[in-house]
């Protein structure tokens, strides 16, 4: 028997439904079987021409169709699919009537090139200025594009489809967005504002300009051939992350509400922490203090000590800087345990799902707890000798896992960590 409140007297927050889409496939079953088999979802991009790009592969989700195509449309469709899966599992509320708020992590929305090109063609002459584009934008021909490219459009669609309550929040904390959506849900339940929250994170932004933007910041791997071997977290020859698409949804409930309705509890969000790094727009403070503080805050929030964490689901992007920084900061928090606790990076297989990553990896962490099996970090052929993590390299490992720390770090100094457990502490 466990108490409905945690050590700090707050409602315990549990997970009762999960849904996931990644480049590996749709749904928990498909994703999990491929993940523990060490399969990669990274492939050469076929959605658009890759001529002239330094990076030509990504973890695209090509099996979800959207017409007319847009990155925001794909984000929305994936979010819908994962929410359906999570709600079916949770069996909460009624169809179109979810009894709580929506927190949506979504990539910043903008008018995209296909629509911009359509506008360019509609001008109907070879020489024109931006004012000409502006002049033909009105009149009702492109009303659908206004709705599509509102920042709040994906959340509004989900809120209307699933009947979430109140004002849905669309948020971005860059690569930590998925973790932040979960944190907002946890906080709302702990404050007693609601018994349930729907936390969704989605990112479908593998498009030419997004690839170029990350390329210009030298953030992406250029090891294009074979694409499956591009993402190499913790390896000496890692050279950047691999962009990817995906979505994750979690139904959070108070332990009390979940047990009262006889829901199956899939896991517990035992702790969340967040700390801003004010050092640089794209780099972590060299002393790692903000990340160290973030992990410590998360442990404190969970009322746990480092020795109670028996697995780390790393941010592990495979950029030269991130993985080194993650080992150094983890060592500062966990001491020698940092070299003993099994560590893995799901991004070796699904790539970096950016805005969705925090939620996608929280779901993989919860599946790790359920199956007592840690998915591998593939492409781990040449370990970086300065990163002394106990990496679960190349093959999945059976292990006793009771508490997982999942980390997310993003541009703009965003750091967020979660601690997920099987049972309430």
């Amino acid at each position, binding site marked *: 028997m466990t108490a409905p409140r945690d050590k700090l007297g707050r409602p315990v927050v549990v997970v009762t439904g999960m849904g996931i889409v990644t480049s590996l496939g749709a749904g928990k079953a498909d994703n999990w079987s491929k993940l523990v088999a060490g399969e990669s979802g990274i492939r050469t991009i076929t959605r658009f*021409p*890759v001529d*002239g*790009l330094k990076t030509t592969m990504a973890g695209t989700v090509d099996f979800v169709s959207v017409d007319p195509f847009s990155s925001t449309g794909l984000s929305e469709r994936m979010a819908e699919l994962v929410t359906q899966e999570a709600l079916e599992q949770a069996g909460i509320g009624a169809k179109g009537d979810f009894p709580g708020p929506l927190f949506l992590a*979504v990539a*910043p929305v*903008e*008018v995209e090139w296909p629509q911009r090109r359509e506008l*360019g*063609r509609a*001008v109907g002459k*070879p*020489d024109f*200025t*931006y004012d000409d*584009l*502006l002049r033909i*934008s*009105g009149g009702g021909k492109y*009303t659908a594009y*206004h*709705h599509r490219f*509102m920042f*709040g459009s994906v959340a*509004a669609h989900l809120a*209307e489809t699933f009947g979430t*309550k*109140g*004002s849905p*929040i*669309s*948020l*971005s*904390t860059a690569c930590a967005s998925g973790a*932040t959506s979960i944190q907002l849900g946890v*906080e*709302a339940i702990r404050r007693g*504002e*609601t018994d349930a929250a729907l936390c969704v994170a989605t990112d479908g932004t593998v498009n*030419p*300009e997004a690839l*170029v*933007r990350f*390329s*210009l*910041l030298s953030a992406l791997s250029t090891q294009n051939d074979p694409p499956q071997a591009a993402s190499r977290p913790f390896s000496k020859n890692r050279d950047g992350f691999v962009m990817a698409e995906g979505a994750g949804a979690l139904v959070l409930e108070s332990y009390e509400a979940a047990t009262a309705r006889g829901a199956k509890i899939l896991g517990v969000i035992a702790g969340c922490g*967040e*700390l*801003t*790094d*004010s*050092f*640089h*727009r794209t780099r972590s403070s060299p002393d790692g203090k*903000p990340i160290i503080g973030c992990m410590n805050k998360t442990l404190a929030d969970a009322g746990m000590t480092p020795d109670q964490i028996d697995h780390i689901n790393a941010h592990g992007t495979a950029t030269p800087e991130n993985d080194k920084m993650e080992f150094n900061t983890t060592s500062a928090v966990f001491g020698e345990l940092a070299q003993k606790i099994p560590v893995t990076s799901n991004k070796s297989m699904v790539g970096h799902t950016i805005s969705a990553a925090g939620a996608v990896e929280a779901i993989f962490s919860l599946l790790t707890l359920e199956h007592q099996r840690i998915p591998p970090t593939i492409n781990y052929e040449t370990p970086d000798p300065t990163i002394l993590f106990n990496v679960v390299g190349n093959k999945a490992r059976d292990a006793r896992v009771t508490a997982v720390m999942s980390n997310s770090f*993003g*541009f*703009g*100094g*965003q750091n967020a960590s979660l601690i997920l457990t099987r049972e309430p502490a």
Partner: protein
Amino acid sequence: MTDTASKPGQTEVWITGIGLATSLGEGLDANWAALQEKRVNVDEKGFAPFIVHPLMPVTFDSQIPKKGDQRQMEAWQRIGTYAAGLALDSAGIKGNKDILSKIDMVVAAGGGERDLNVDTGVLTAEAKGANAPGFLNERLMSDLRPTLFLAQLSNLLAGNIAIVHGLGGTSRTFMGEEVAGADAARIALARIASGESDIALVGGSHNGERKDLMVLYEFGDFNLKDKFAPVWARKDHSGFALGSAGAFLVLESKAHAQARGAKPFAKLSSVVADLARRKQPGDMAATLEKLWAKLPRREGKGAIITGATGAEPATSEERGFLKGHADYPVRATGTMFGHTMETQFPLGIALAALAISRGALFPPNDSTGTEIEMQGAPTQIVVMGAGHWRGEGMALVEAVS
């Protein structure tokens, strides 16, 4: 339920800092003086036929001393980082490392500021026949500035504020047009009221002088064209005139403020928000009534400051709602400041707090009679924000008793 109201046993939340950089000027005195004089700063020529409320030029160096930092931002981020600095100054915590290292930030942001020359260059080259498969890729690889991406990311307003002013607590960025500003205040208030946080910087910024944004809103025929008119006088000539502004607030628990001897402008008692389906006429007004009923209003002199956009049908629905509450004098910030999107709601809270602290509502600026004079000092002001397309929010700002 997604309401935030100070409940019994919850801590009172004060507004102890306000930072404003708008089309009317920078700082509280300049903005207040402009409101008293019913001054409106619109540019009807620069973006003709569209109308904008351009930022009154500021010396960015005074809040963003490093040129390198300024270069890493686009205008919307510079405006916001500047206004955030003014808010920290106003609260008396600028440079206070103890407080800044733990202050929480909730920012309402858009993003996506584009390089119009790059976009136009690609499109005209394609119009002239450039159609190689990799043409777009190659042009973007060679023409995009690497740092432009950082000026496009929504969360990099918060990132820049953290870097320039040395903030080290939590940082969350909400998107979603107008209601994002209400949600930012709602979550920050909830966190302080429940004891999760002691002090927070909340706000947003917007650069209205952007043709790429005008394209987006023109898709829906939302831009005000040809001739400026007060928000309430646009019924047959609807639309919003984009405005440039940064508006930030320092919210703080009463205990935290008192411990450091900080004086409040006002208290933020409640923020509520919802998403009306807006399928039928009356849907939005019904949601506004629901939100109104949730505010813990008291007896006493009240007023309404609304971010009504001038776009239809939202503004007519809102006018209908306001008719039912005609005992509350109304002010539409869109007339004086233009439509500043995510920033309009924090701007409304800022003006409400300012009006309460100065003991008077600013005068009406309206030719239709919707706005009436108010005698005496307001003790409570309801801030409203109904999005031009989606999202409704309300806040109650009260005098500290």
